[in-house]
């Protein structure tokens, strides 16, 4: 009997990263821009996607992958907007992983411009998993409070854009959007900040314009 110590240095997320890289390559080759949406439950991810569907419908084709622990509800809401949607129910898992997206990829129609992935509502675990997206949005709604970025830094650190949602409620709440943005920017400089009310439509035009420009960059190979 003998013992020996071996250096392994194996990244536990290596398999996920590898699958995500394949998904990214595949979607880029099809000219599809993929966006991963992260936030707490109830901060307005599905409502934002519904508002985007309304605004994009004449110009842009989109599809949505919905992640939830249970129920088909979110995919049904998206389908009512005439947008193809797939529901992943994780049955308890707190995040989506790249292989779950990979299984659906073959069904996603080639003739779309954007693939949105709505992650499981959770500001912690989804941050660690690359899904092959080109852009990651983290949403923070005004009722959640402006002190959340420093409490959940991983999500903000991993994002490209911060979307402050439910801005129509700000007059009734002790929520300072400048404080939320400043805190997020101290964690992730260069984060793009948008303020939207998906229900009232405020700020939606700027977000749509940003997405369309990102799609143009991707297709001209400058992404």
């Amino acid at each position, binding site marked *: *009997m*003998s*013992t*020996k*110590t*071996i*250096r*392994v*240095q*194996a*990244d*536990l*997320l290596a*398999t996920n990263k590898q699958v995500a890289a394949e998904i990214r390559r595949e979607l880029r080759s099809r000219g599809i821009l993929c966006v991963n949406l992260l936030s707490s439950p109830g901060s307005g991810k599905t409502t934002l996607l519904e508002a985007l569907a309304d605004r994009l419908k004449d110009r842009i084709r989109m599809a949505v992958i919905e992640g939830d622990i249970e129920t088909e509800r979110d995919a049904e809401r998206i389908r009512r907007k005439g947008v193809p949607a797939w529901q992943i129910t994780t049955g308890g*898992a*707190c*995040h989506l*992983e790249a292989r779950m997206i990979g299984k659906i990829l073959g069904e996603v129609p080639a003739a779309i411009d954007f693939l949105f992935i709505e992650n499981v509502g959770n500001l*912690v*675990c989804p*941050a*660690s*998993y690359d899904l092959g997206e080109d852009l990651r949005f983290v949403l923070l709604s005004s009722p959640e409070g402006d002190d959340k*970025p*420093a409490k959940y*830094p*991983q999500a903000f*650190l991993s994002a490209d854009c911060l979307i402050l949602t439910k801005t129509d409620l700000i007059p009734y709440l002790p929520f300072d959007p400048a404080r939320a943005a400043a805190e997020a920017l*101290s*964690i*992730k*400089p*260069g984060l793009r900040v948008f303020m939207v009310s998906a229900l009232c439509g405020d700020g939606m035009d700027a977000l749509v314009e940003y997405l369309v420009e990102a799609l143009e960059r991707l297709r001209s190979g400058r992404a």
Partner: protein
Amino acid sequence: MHELSLIASVFDILEEKAREHGASRVTAVVLRVGRMSGVVPDLLESAFETYKNGTLAEGARLTIEVVPVKLRCPDCGGTSVREDTDFSCTACGSRRVEIVEGREIVVEKIELETDGA
């Protein structure tokens, strides 16, 4: 709480390495976990203790090294370690820093027991 699925990947690696080295048991595992990795060391430990029963790592002890956040600054060339979430260079204040350590979740080393001499 994705610690359990991460521990499942640890055991995939343990089995692979044990096979590779002809080992019958794993007696120690060292993980390196970044402070900004999004996983909680305590939860990893409980997941490991639960998962190891009946496996080749049944008697293994787990050590978790928490890796602080280390930044490299392209403006002044310095590196700094941050304990908070203000990710700016401690030397020159630049915000264009790159996080070089502190986000990893890695099996660093393992101790194997072989039946041979």
